[in-house]
């Protein structure tokens, strides 16, 4: 990167783009903390997603990394550098806002070039770089249009280009796809991901959409009530949620309270369950509905329960069943998700008798 007269000094080395949050806390006007003592390490070049319901503090956390909010306690390090006294305009961090925040008095090119212009990059180099990023994001056809004349998808591209053109160490994305329709959203998810892998910048993506988080991220941090509930690779967080909140926020699940029976068995409201996981402080058993097998006849294996299909909802690629267990009529019906692929032996109608199998490997122990 050449020609930078002002603005942030680029950091070199493997640390470039890493983020370290240490006990970061933000309290608004004496109420409960919006962000409550968060410790988090985000690796350089990672696509990291902060996932949580609205009001969980994820946007506040993002705003503190950007420099729009100052933590009341704790430290933020970007590329290994303490950010306490570094204002937003001196951080090598660029944000894609949920509302896009395109400048209404500038056209698309001028919007994209704004950051370079503020850093004192000379016009010829500015043009080269703006043109390059516009080419990459296929913005050329509407380069001279005004922000007000763009569609939602085009605005999103321009907002992304305006951040990427500065080659920042970290790109922050605050629910950038939430205003778009489903099809465009899927397209842009893929494009965003491709762009991130290609440019190798650290992306921190904030969303409340668990599907989006699963599709895009290297790692996810699930947030609730100002705290990080669980951090890990997508697969781990989905398959081995730490607690009920994470299990339920990331997808459908069957959850029962347990009494440890000692050894490889726990007592649940649906009866004793054999498990392979070891039981520590956890007091809940969880199994994802797509991990449950349905059989017309009883297989001679552990964790098989007789029941009746009480509800069958066809959802295209899959069907969602509720099965009321014969031996545990008081327990809520079990949720089962079955794919409608070519290998599926059969589907089930409401009222049919079935046997559901909860393989011990698939039963997870989680916290309340």
């Amino acid at each position, binding site marked *: 990167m050449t020609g930078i007269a*002002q*603005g*942030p000094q680029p950091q070199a080395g493997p640390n470039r783009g890493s983020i370290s949050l240490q006990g970061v806390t933000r309290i608004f*006007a004496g109420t409960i903390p919006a962000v409550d003592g968060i410790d988090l390490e985000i690796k350089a070049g990672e696509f990291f997603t902060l996932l949580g319901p609205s009001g969980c503090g994820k946007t506040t956390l993002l705003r503190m990394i*950007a*420099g*729009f909010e100052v933590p009341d306690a704790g430290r933020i390090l970007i590329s290994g550098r303490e950010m306490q006294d570094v*204002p*937003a*305009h*001196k951080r090598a*961090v*660029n*944000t894609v*806002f*949920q*509302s*896009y*925040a*395109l*400048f*209404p*008095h*500038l*056209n698309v*090119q*001028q919007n994209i*070039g*704004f*950051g370079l*212009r*503020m*850093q004192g990059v000379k*016009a010829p180099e*500015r*043009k080269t770089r703006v043109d390059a990023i516009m080419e990459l994001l296929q913005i050329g056809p509407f380069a*001279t*249009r*005004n*922000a*007000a004349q763009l569609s939602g998808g085009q605005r999103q591209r321009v907002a992304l280009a*305006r951040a990427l053109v*500065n080659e920042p160490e970290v790109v922050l994305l605050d629910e950038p796809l939430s205003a778009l329709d489903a099809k465009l959203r899927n397209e842009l998810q893929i494009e965003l991901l491709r762009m991130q892998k290609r440019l190798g910048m650290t992306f921190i993506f904030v969303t409340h959409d668990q599907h989006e988080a699963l599709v895009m991220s290297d790692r996810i941090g699930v947030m609730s009530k100002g705290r990080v509930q669980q951090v890990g690779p997508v697969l781990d967080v989905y398959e081995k949620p730490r607690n009920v909140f994470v299990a339920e926020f990331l997808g459908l699940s069957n959850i029962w309270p347990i009494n440890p029976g000692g050894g490889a068995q726990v007592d649940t409201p649906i009866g004793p369950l054999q498990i392979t996981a070891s039981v520590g402080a956890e007091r809940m058993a969880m199994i994802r509905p797509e991990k449950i097998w349905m059989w017309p006849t009883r297989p001679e294996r552990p964790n098989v329960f007789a029941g009746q299909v009480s509800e069958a909802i066809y959802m295209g690629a899959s069907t969602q069943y509720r099965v009321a267990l014969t031996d545990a009529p008081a327990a809520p019906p079990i949720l089962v998700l079955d794919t409608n692929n070519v290998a599926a032996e059969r589907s089930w109608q409401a009222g049919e008798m079935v046997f559901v199998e909860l393989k011990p490997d698939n039963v997870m122990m989680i916290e309340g």
Partner: protein
Amino acid sequence: MSNIPRGVRNGLLGVSLPVYLLLYAPLAIIAVFSFAPSLHHPGLNVAAYGLLANDPQVLAAIRRSLVLALCSAALGTMLGTLMGFGLSRFRPAKGGGFWVGTLPSLIIYLPIIMPSLVFGISEMIFFNYVHQYTGLLSAGLLTMGIAHVTFQAPYVALVVYARLAGLDANLFEASHDLYANGLKSFLYLTIPVVRPALIGGFLLAITLSIDDFTISFFTAGPGSVTLPIYIYGEIARKGSSPEINAIGTLMIATVIGVALLYYVVTRQQGRIGQTSAA
């Protein structure tokens, strides 16, 4: 349009036509009568305008009105802009609360709905007291200017506030995010973005000042007869005349001109990006 029943449409037309007539017929009549024949000039003619151009009293009044309008509008726009920024920053929606959000906006907007008669009389009494005890602020163009600024500023504040409130709340953060410090953000974002509102507010302030009679009347001194006060005096002495009609016509033309300018400028605010350089 087409799904409005014919009867309703005719009814609406029956109401709106007389309203337009009442609004614009008097203006048309004044304009026509400014060309009316007089004792020495039979037939439609421009003699009234010739008299105006040679009447030192009229010319002085026009000059005073323009000086007053330009000076007060300049000051009123500056103050009003600051007020507009303040209102926008502490608006209740942004957590300003009653004392720093709602109350200041109420106080600022009060002069807009306050009857100008009350406003004018209280200003007159106030200036009198100040003059009596300090010797400063004797009634004249200065007191009129101060009074004009006080009623112009809220209107400008309203225009500027409306512009700021219509902007994306993250715009200013976006500029900082893109490496602009406070000064650069002000120069390259704030100023260009509120410029249409500034120009619009300034033009509005000018028309308000040129147009004002009530407050001007109470705050004027013997040496500060502006156009509206001059017209009032002439009509009180000898009733309507072609010269008064001519002055009226000129004022109408001026105000329509300023209003058109205002319209063009405010319409432009969405399109500025296409014309300015990278």
